[in-house]
């Protein structure tokens, strides 16, 4: 094999197929970017697998991030791929501990951009108190994928006796959200379409585990926790209503939505209830714990806008009903297909 002169990372601008070959170029990339930022004893051993010690009951989750654009107001694919999986793990009532990350990178991708992304991953992992302990990088020929895809998987230790589940919503329960709805979805939508609104909309992308830990360690009974990502609050609540075979009623006038997000959605024909969130979770719990839960949430910056937004009822089973501002009722259905801009 010919020596690869250009494999020197410093001074090189773009990812080459060599970087995924497993040879010297790969090694340099691992050392000079991945290990540099994500360093910890387990990762640094660079064995084929990570050696972990965890408690008996674990929560395990995986997600693949293909977001476009990869840099957006409020975060980037690096922030997202850590906080997204951390949040999924935490939703069961678990303390996220270890993550893996797999990169698929398009040939020609800017190394500076990769470094920015990995730095965001490191910052977010630090915030969340998790370690990235194993990883993989593949480089594919230009045009095979769009820039960069990242998969993260992770495990966390359960700290509750009875894990939260979408099946546990019970009539009489209340629904709380930790803050404003639709920020991430609108930020991505406007960045992707290059739409310039008069106000800045930023993604809410953030790891929620410390807030969740605080909540589940102090509130003895939380039935459901779920992060309303793709499909938004409306779709997530529909999933829960179906899983638990209950009706979930939302109070329209209580929904926390930033004025800018509301206006932006009006202009673009979008509905905040169907827009993705990346730093929010829905929490369904018995009515008697509502005040305590809100108080705990509001103490955390990620929960300062926490609001009671709905309640669980018996019927109509499997449906989400919106109690509208004017005192009417209507169905809030699941998102069907792509969220397309509206005509007119």
């Amino acid at each position, binding site marked *: 094999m010919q020596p690869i002169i250009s494999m020197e990372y410093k001074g090189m601008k773009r990812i080459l197929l060599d970087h995924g070959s497993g040879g010297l170029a790969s090694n340099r990339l691992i050392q000079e970017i991945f290990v540099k930022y994500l360093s910890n004893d387990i990762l640094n051993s660079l064995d084929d697998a990570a050696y972990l010690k965890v408690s008996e009951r674990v929560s395990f989750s995986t997600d693949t991030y293909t977001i476009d654009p990869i840099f957006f107001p409020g975060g980037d694919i690096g922030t997202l791929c850590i906080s997204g999986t951390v949040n999924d793990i935490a939703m069961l009532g678990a303390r996220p501990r270890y993550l893996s990350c797999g990169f698929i990178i398009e040939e020609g991708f800017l190394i500076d951009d990769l470094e920015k992304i990995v730095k965001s991953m490191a910052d977010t992992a630090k915030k969340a108190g998790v370690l990235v302990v194993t990883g993989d990088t593949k480089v594919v020929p230009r045009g095979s994928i769009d820039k960069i895809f990242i998969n993260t998987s992770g495990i966390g230790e359960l700290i509750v006796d009875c894990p939260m589940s979408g099946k546990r919503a019970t009539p009489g329960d209340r629904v709380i959200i930790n803050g404003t709805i639709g920020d991430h979805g609108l930020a991505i939508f406007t960045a992707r379409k290059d739409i310039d609104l008069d106000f800045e909309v930023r993604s809410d992308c953030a790891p929620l585990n410390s807030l969740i830990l605080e909540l589940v360690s102090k509130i003895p009974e939380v039935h459901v926790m779920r992060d309303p990502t793709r499909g938004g609050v409306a779709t997530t609540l529909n999933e829960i209503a179906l899983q638990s075979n209950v009706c979930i009623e939302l109070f329209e006038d209580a929904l926390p939505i930033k004025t800018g997000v509301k206006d932006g959605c009006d202009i*673009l024909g979008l509905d905040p209830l169907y827009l993705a969130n990346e730093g929010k979770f829905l929490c369904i719990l018995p009515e008697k714990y509502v005040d305590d839960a809100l108080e705990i949430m509001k103490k955390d910056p990620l929960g300062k806008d926490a609001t009671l937004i709905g309640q669980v009822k018996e019927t109509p089973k499997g449906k989400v009903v919106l109690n509208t*501002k*004017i*005192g*009417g009722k*209507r169905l809030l259905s699941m998102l069907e297909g792509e969220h397309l*801009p509206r*005509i007119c």
Partner: protein
Amino acid sequence: MEGVDIQKNIKGLVSRIEDNLKGPFRFMEVCGTHTVSIFRSGLRSLFPPLLEHISGPGCPVCVTHSIDIAMGMELAEKKDIILAIFGDMMRVPDHRGMTLKDLRAKGANISICYSPLDSLKLAMDNKDKEVVFWGIGFETTVPTVGATIIQAKKMGIKNFSVLSHHKIIPPALKFLVESGDVEINGFLLPGHVSTIIGVSPYEFLAKEYNIPSVISGFEPMEILDALYMLTLMHKNETPQVINCYPRAVKPEGNKKAQEVINEVFEVSDGYWRGIGEIEASGLEISRDYVEFDAKKKFGLKPRDVTQPKGCRCGEVLQGKISPKDCPLFGKKCTPISPVGPCMVSTEGSCAAYYKYGV
């Protein structure tokens, strides 16, 4: 407290409407934005039992005939064409059940635009391609399309044209009341369309057919105000056309927009989904702007195509049946795999029933 006040006002108005009703009163709205507002706000759940709401042909995507859809699809399949569309057209199935989404997956170049002006920019950025804007919409949309064509002419842009399937509302209303198939006791007239055309094009509804009609805004309170006026005129047997949306609608409409329409378009017969051809209800690009007429530029001719089997969108659009009466509703036809256009557009009555109906 604000919420409680609104609810109190709404309740009050609903009961005043109820007081006007001595028997069933059926009103039709002919604007997709009204359809959505009535459903989305939950207003429909508050209507008194005697007040019957039907949605007419007010959703531009829904009224687009299979013949016109076939023409747009034919264009999308041509090489070196970028078809610029409003988002909703993406999922409308043609007579074969194919959509632009399917064509895009096969390699067709389709671009979703928010404004016709975006498509002009697209043409300037893609000089080696022909960019065609698929003009779907009523009087509200037409002036912007017209202005875009005027702009294109001024700038001497050669690779831009418009496939005009625009429609105008009053002839469709005339057709509905003349056919007499459905009893309509009152019209809730479209706020947006009226800002352009004004009040007088609707006068015939009251004068010739004794049907009270009210131009209304889109907030729930505005709609209820309009319904109060409609039911009052019905009770007193004093049919008139009333403008309850004066902050946006001037009696004479928007003269400037009308001038643009008259400059760039000429009235022609139009195909309406489920209805067929209605005299003088369509808009073609006028002779002065013929170089921007995609039909002429690409030699497109209407083809005789069949409507999808079992689809009753046509009857829904005329208020003859409720979406729930269609055997395909919610079964074979859902927003994710729509058979007819009324299930595609967010403004379509079938989609509204499916999405919001409790």
